[in-house]
């Protein structure tokens, strides 16, 4: 069982709260989303494992059970081509759960006309594999968002 932690502090809005249908309709996978506090910060690894992909507006960490979790920082942020996002670890690195992996600023993303809402997605997971999925309320960085059997 993997415990998936929130990469950012903020308010949980659920995937339906992501203003992008590909995420909102769970086409990328099931999970949840967090509307982050408007401040410069460092997003953390949602699980312990290996960094499969570091873009760095989005990253994937695969844990020892083979569960891959995608964290997507903001919506449409791929268009920023990395501007405003500083990777703190490299692709292929091992990270601990809660380790700081990307420096970014939710205010900057919002000031650029994009939503800073962060999607946290279980890749290749069926919806029933997730339990205790948070869908609302305030969340601290590094606290549990859902469990993945």
């Amino acid at each position, binding site marked *: 069982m993997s415990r998936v932690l929130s990469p950012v502090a903020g308010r949980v809005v659920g995937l339906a709260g992501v203003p992008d249908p590909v995420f909102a309709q769970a086409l*990328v996978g099931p999970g949840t989303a967090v509307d982050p506090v408007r401040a410069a910060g460092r997003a953390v690894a949602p699980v312990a494992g290996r960094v499969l992909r570091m873009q760095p507006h989005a990253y994937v960490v695969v844990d020892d059970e083979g569960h891959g979790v995608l964290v997507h920082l903001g919506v449409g942020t791929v268009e920023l081509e990395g501007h405003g996002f500083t990777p703190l670890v490299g692709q292929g690195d091992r990270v601990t759960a809660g380790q700081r992996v990307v420096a970014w600023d939710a205010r900057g993303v919002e000031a650029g006309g994009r939503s800073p809402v962060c999607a946290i997605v279980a890749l290749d997971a069926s919806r029933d594999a997730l339990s205790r999925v948070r869908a609302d309320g305030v969340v601290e960085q590094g606290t549990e968002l859902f469990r993945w059997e």
Partner: protein
Amino acid sequence: MTERTVKVMSRAGLHARPAALFVQTAARASQDVTVSKRGKDPVNAKSILAVLGLDAHHGEEITLAARGEGADDLLDELEHILSQEEPQRA
């Protein structure tokens, strides 16, 4: 076996949006579908983890493979997704 080598045209490479659309399309097929980068082992095209793990960048070529009935049509659809510069937003 039907094989096809296609260039990734998405400006940001095979990131979340095109990867999700690609995998959704591949997953509708009954047969196995694989995708590979030159010199690497083919991976399951129905797995978004595997497809994101390819780390396919803009302009890179990847090879799609499927067998059986409808393989050509399926590869047409997958090629169409890869050939778009940005399938909507991400």
